[in-house]
Every structure is written in C-alpha cells, then in structure tokens.
C-alpha cells in the first residue's frame, strides 16, 4: 500500500462505489437544478428575449446552489459510521484522502450538472453560441465550487444543524467563481472572446484543488476532535 498510484486508485474506487450505491443522492442535485431553472420562467414571465439575457446568470446561480446542496452530506455518512475515524488513523495523509474524496464527488455531481446544462440553456432560450463557454465554465467552476463547499462541509460535519450554516460560510466565497463563470458565458453569448474569464477560472481551479485539501483536512480533524 505504499505506491501512491495504488493508494489513489483504491481511494477513488471506494468513493465512487459508495456514491454509486446511493443513486438518488446523485440524481437529487440534478433534479434540483432542473426544477429551479424551470421556476425562473414562471416567476419572470416567458418572454424569450428576457430569458435569453438572464440565462447565463440563472444557470450559474442555480448550478452554484445545486453544488452547495450536494456538498452538504459530503462527509456526513463517513462521520456518522466511523469511517472518518479510520481515515484519520490510516497512514495515508488526510490531504490525499480529502483530495480524492472531493474529486470523486465532483465526478458524480459537478460533471453531470455540466453535461445537463446545455439542455436547460436551450429551455431558457440561451443563444447556442454560448454553449461551449457554458460547458467549459461550469466544468471548471463546479470543480472550484465543490472544493470550497467541501471546506464548509468539513467544518460543519460535526454540528447538528449544519445546513443553513454551511451556506452562510460558503456562499461569500463563491463570489469570484460566479463572476468569472457567468461573465465567460455572457461574453460568448454576445460573440466576444471569453478566454480571459475562463483562464482565470482555470487558475482558480488549480489553486483550490491544491490548497483546499489542506483546509479540508484541518477542518475534519477539528470536527472529529470535537
């Protein structure tokens, strides 16, 4: 068990298997995304011009909320059944375990959300030239958001009333990703070059993938010691 690649594969396999056995938890955020996006035309009126203008923002905000919802239970079952304790005791660094866990979570929440987004973009009358930027920005953006939300989830996992608190902690930190992500889509819709905000999102993704596991590991230790 000392080869890092084996550790990586074993951890990733375990996380994916555990998540795949609870299919509804994968499906729920996607249905949330679908339903909330469907509420916007009902609230704002079905005018195609209005919806087309707001679609990038709506899609991004709803995707952000869906990521937040999906992350709430990220560490809960591990904390409740004692897996977290075993993970803390194991010789594998907690940094690696956290990194793999969030990546696996993203593969089954952020990625499907990204793949579902073109459908919703069409329903919201978004011009099709924005779709590539939407896919790219959501793929990178949900990765960033998942890692930020995981910090909050790790901090609140030991608390009885974590849900609302999690959104209070995490939503202000989502601001930059939201700005760059929706700007990328808006620029693409207007026929402008959207590589600058996408590059910034990419830089944020690299930074958070590397740095956030440190905070997640620290937060898990605090939650466990509590």
């Amino acid at each position, binding site marked *: 068990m000392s080869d890092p690649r084996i550790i990586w594969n074993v951890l990733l396999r375990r996380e994916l298997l555990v998540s795949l056995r609870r299919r509804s938890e994968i499906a729920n955020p996607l249905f949330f995304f679908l339903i909330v996006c469907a509420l916007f035309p009902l609230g704002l009126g079905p005018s195609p011009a209005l919806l087309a203008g707001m679609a990038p923002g709506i899609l991004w905000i709803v995707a952000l909320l869906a990521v937040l919802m999906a992350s709430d239970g990220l560490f809960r079952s591990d904390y409740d059944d004692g897996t977290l304790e075993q993970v803390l005791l194991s010789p594998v660094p907690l940094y690696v375990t956290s990194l793999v866990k969030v990546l696996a979570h993203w593969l089954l929440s952020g990625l499907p959300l990204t793949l579902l987004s073109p459908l919703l973009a069409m329903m919201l009358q978004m011009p099709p030239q924005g779709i590539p930027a939407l896919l790219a920005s959501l793929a990178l953006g949900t990765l960033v958001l998942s890692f930020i939300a995981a910090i909050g989830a790790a901090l609140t996992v030991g608390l009885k009333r974590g849900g609302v608190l999690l959104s209070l902690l995490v939503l202000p930190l989502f601001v*930059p990703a939201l700005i760059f992500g929706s700007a990328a889509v808006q620029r693409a819709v207007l026929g402008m070059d959207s590589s600058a905000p996408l590059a910034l999102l990419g830089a944020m993704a690299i930074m958070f993938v590397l740095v956030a596991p440190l905070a997640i590991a620290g937060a898990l230790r605090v939650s466990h010691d*509590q």
Partner: protein
Amino acid sequence: MWAWFHKWSSPRWFYQLSGTLLPWLAVISLAALIVGVAWGLMFVPPDYKQGNSFRIIYIHVPAAAVAMAGYLLMATAGAISLIWRIKLADMVLKCAAPIGAALTFLALVTGAIWGKPTWGTWWVWDARITSVLVLFFLYIGIIALYEAFDNKEAAGRASAILALVGAVNIPIIYWSVEWWYSLHQPASISFTGESSIHPQMLRPLLLTITGFYCFFGWVLLLKVRNEILHRERSTRWVRDLILSR
C-alpha cells in the same frame, strides 16, 4: 524574543499588561475622535463639488479601513492559534469578529447615506461596495460558525481555519469584483504618490483614522480581558483578583 512572545501569550500576563495599556488607548482614541470629528465637521471648508455631504468621510473611511485591518488581525490570530495552539489568539479571534462586523456595517451604512445626495441612490452595485458587503458576509460567517460549536476549543480552531480561507480569498474576491464593474472613485490617500485630497481635509481624516484604530484596540482589549476572566474563572489568580476587589 521568544520569552516575550510566551509572556504575552499567557492569559494572566496579558490581562495584567493590557490593564496598563487600556487607559492610554482610551484617552488617545477619545481625544483623536473628538478633535478629529469636530475639526472635520466644523472647521474644514466644504468641498467645491459635494458641499457638506463629503464630511461623512471622517466616519466612513476610518470605519472601512479598520474593518479591513480587523479581518487581517483576525486571520493572523487564527494562524497563530492553529500553529502554536495559543489560547489567547483564539480569544482575540473570537472577540475581533463582532467588532469588525460592526465597523463593516457602519462603513456600508455611512456609504449609503453619502451615496444618496452624491450619486442619487442609496445603493449601487459597484466594485468596492460589493467587496465590502462580501467582507461583512465573511465576518457573519465566522461569528455564526463560532457560535454553532458547543466546545469552545473546537469553535476557535474551526473559526481560525475559516478566517484563513477567507483571508486567502479576499484578494481574489477583491480583484474579481473590481474586474466585474467599477464606478467607485479610486483611493484618495496614497502613500507613494501625491494624495488627491486637499491637506486641509486630510489632517482631520488622519486623526479620525488614528482614533478608530485606537478605539478598535481599546474595545478589543476590553472584550479579550472579559473573555480571559470568563475562561480562566476556575484558576486561582482570577479568584484572587475578584476577591481583592
């Protein structure tokens, strides 16, 4: 240097040393605030464009500056508490958060009051206002997280982690919002170049800024001393101290 560090990090020593510091801070902050505000409100000539409404900067600018510095102090205390497990840093973090949040709120409110006659609206989604609003949310998050834990040691460490994550994010938030939109005027005081504010207006502003910093230190020390007494209430020195009163 280390001996000094350890001495200050002991709650008992801190309590005694901060006691001698308190009256000085109180006198300086009150004097600077009274003189600065009176000077700024009554003796500085009105602005040629904004008239008298510009005078709110004597509250607005110091509040905003200290609110930001307060977050930095809080994050530094968080780092110290995580690295060296110093209880005192925990207490500083806990006590600085509500003061910082209050000052951020004051900066937002005074900004809105100034915006009404100047921009014609209470609220504008401009870059700097938005980032101060996010700063306010970050403060609220830290207070909420601290209050959610029953175990105060865990609460301190969790808030310290969150404060550090927030501190890493503040530059990103600032630049993202700046990039998003900017209507707010650039900073008027510059330490490297010539300030764009007239010296006659600047002098009372520097006084009130000093006053706000000292006020922050004063209130922080009062709160930390209170927290020390509360947490160390079962120790002998606190009992002796209370009995000797």
